[in-house]
């Protein structure tokens, strides 16, 4: 047995290229369907867990799936907005907790999530370092943001410019990193959380600048219009909120009209949930969705597509096996003289067969080893892979 395997090993290593091709055939045939099943299972598990922990979402009318994925996974390129006043309406209705979500900007490619402090206990997020947001301009970052950017509490993190070519656009805001969240294994690890008002400041709806009136510096004013002082272009807005200038920050307009992306709702009970859902039925601008239902619909569709893929994979596997069989038969034919010589030298037919089997076993074992390694990697990085491939904008 050992002799046969030794000879087989020499054959496999001598014919490196053809052995590699056979190994590659085995790896691809086995790995792809297994990996797809694995990733899909993880995807299902991950997306369903997050969806089930989110009882309801209110957002602008449009794709229910987009609204769900935007709100659950913080896809930051969200165009549709709803007024912040809806948060107040829900809160005043007393049927549910309403948590606003503002998703429009990024900081070094990580989404900035404008929300309220209610978000953290609701998602059971706890701080690993530092403190919670205390004032405008503070942010709390997810564990992955902290590790990838190498930031600690007290550091500064600048929001990304909306458009690098638009120099007249809103300038980036330098935020103070107040705390780092503990790892949660969810999309929260990859987000930068700020207070909703800080998000509006990044959007340019609020700002802070030097005090402007005719007494302080006449170069900064263009004139007086009733009680309002008209500032000149020389007045510079603050790019960072500090303890010294925080008082100068203010908003122009009504908060109720300010934009948010979605409202995460946590109804008090099933009846409240039904009533809340009913409130928005037929609304021409808003829609109320239950994420778990949306995700179930998505998964039903995905599983249908997967069954097609499975059938395809099965056919490819059969074709590959047939090709492998053909290759092996041709190889045996080519090696007939070698086998005949071995027989003449005193090798038994069964040892010759064992030699062939040993070669197949070695190639199969190498293939399985590689497949196992790749599956292990897929299993360990499936969550990151899923978020990177499907759930990030």
């Amino acid at each position, binding site marked *: 047995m050992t002799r046969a395997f030794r000879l087989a090993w020499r054959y496999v290593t001598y014919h490196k290229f053809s052995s590699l091709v056979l190994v590659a055939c085995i790896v691809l045939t086995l790995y792809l369907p297994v990996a797809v099943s694995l990733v899909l299972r993880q995807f299902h598990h991950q997306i369903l867990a997050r969806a089930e922990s989110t009882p309801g979402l209110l957002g602008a009318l449009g794709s229910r799936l987009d609204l769900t994925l935007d709100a659950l996974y913080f896809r930051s390129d969200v165009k549709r907005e709803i007024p912040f006043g809806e948060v107040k309406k829900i809160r005043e209705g007393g049927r549910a907790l309403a948590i606003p979500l503002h998703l429009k900007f990024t900081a070094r490619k990580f989404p900035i999530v404008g929300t309220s402090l209610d978000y953290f206990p609701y998602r059971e997020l706890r701080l690993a370092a530092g403190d919670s947001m205390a004032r405008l301009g503070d942010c709390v970052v997810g564990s992955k943001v902290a590790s990838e950017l190498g930031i600690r509490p007290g550091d500064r993190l600048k929001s990304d410019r909306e458009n690098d070519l638009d120099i007249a656009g809103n300038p980036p805001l330098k935020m103070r990193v107040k705390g780092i969240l503990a790892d949660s294994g969810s999309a929260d690890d990859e987000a930068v959380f700020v207070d909703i008002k800080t998000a509006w400041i990044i959007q340019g709806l609020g700002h802070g600048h030097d005090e402007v009136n005719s007494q302080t510096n006449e170069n900064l004013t263009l004139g007086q219009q009733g009680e309002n002082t008209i500032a000149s272009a020389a007045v510079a807005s603050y790019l960072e909120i500090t303890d010294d200038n925080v008082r100068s920050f203010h908003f122009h307009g009504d908060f109720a009209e300010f934009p948010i992306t979605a409202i995460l709702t946590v109804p008090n009970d099933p009846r409240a949930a039904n009533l809340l859902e009913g409130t928005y039925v037929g609304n021409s601008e808003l829609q109320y969705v239950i994420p778990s239902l949306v995700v179930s619909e998505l998964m039903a569709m995905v599983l249908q597509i997967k069954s097609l893929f499975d059938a395809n994979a099965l056919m490819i596997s059969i074709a590959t096996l047939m090709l492998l069989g053909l290759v092996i038969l041709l190889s045996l034919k080519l090696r007939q003289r070698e086998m005949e010589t071995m027989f003449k*030298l005193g090798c038994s037919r069964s040892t010759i067969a064992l030699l062939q089997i040993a070669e197949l076993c070695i190639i199969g074992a190498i293939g399985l080893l590689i497949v196992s390694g790749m599956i292990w990697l897929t299993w360990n990085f499936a969550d990151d892979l899923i978020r990177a491939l499907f759930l990030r904008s």
Partner: protein
Amino acid sequence: MIDIQRLQFEYPRTDFRLRVDRLQVSPGERIAVVGPSGSGKTTLLNLISGIVVPKAGSVEVAGRQVSALSDSKRRDFRAASIGFIFQQFELVEYLSVLENILLPFMINRTLRIDSNVLTRGTELAASMGLQDKLARKIRRLSQGEQQRVAICRALVTEPPLLLADEPTGNLDPRNKGLTIRLLFEFCRRQKATLVVVTHDLGILEGFDRQIDFAQFRPEATP
């Protein structure tokens, strides 16, 4: 060493027939078997070594009725008692020179590789001028070197009987002479018997006896 009596052989589904009434070869004798293609010279070697068995008659080699042995016994007998040399060398390309020489020990369960065998293999290679090429792969050897490896492989079990099928068929004149000299030298030293099948009339000098195979008159089925 070899005693063949009233041998009849035929390949199934062909019109090939071979009949040998009597053929005797003494121990240590060096025999050259010549004859036209298709006359059954290679078949004779296969019968002597037990690769095929006769339809009738007997083949006795070194005192054993080869034709009466079971498959596995014939195989073990072949591995231990017969050294084979082929026209195309039939070396295993994925093994090194030394591994090719030791191949009979690697593929037969009755033979064991020990330090004596290793030494013998290495010394045989050295006696053929292959001492610096033991780790080389076969494709990196010249034709003459490959035939010398094949001869080493045939001799490494120290068989009492050497069967060579056109051993010089693929060699240039210089290597032909060398190959025959090496075979004769081994047989003289080991007192082994040598049966060489050949078309090459230029190498017949030095053999104790020549057998013209045409005399066995293989018959075609009408």
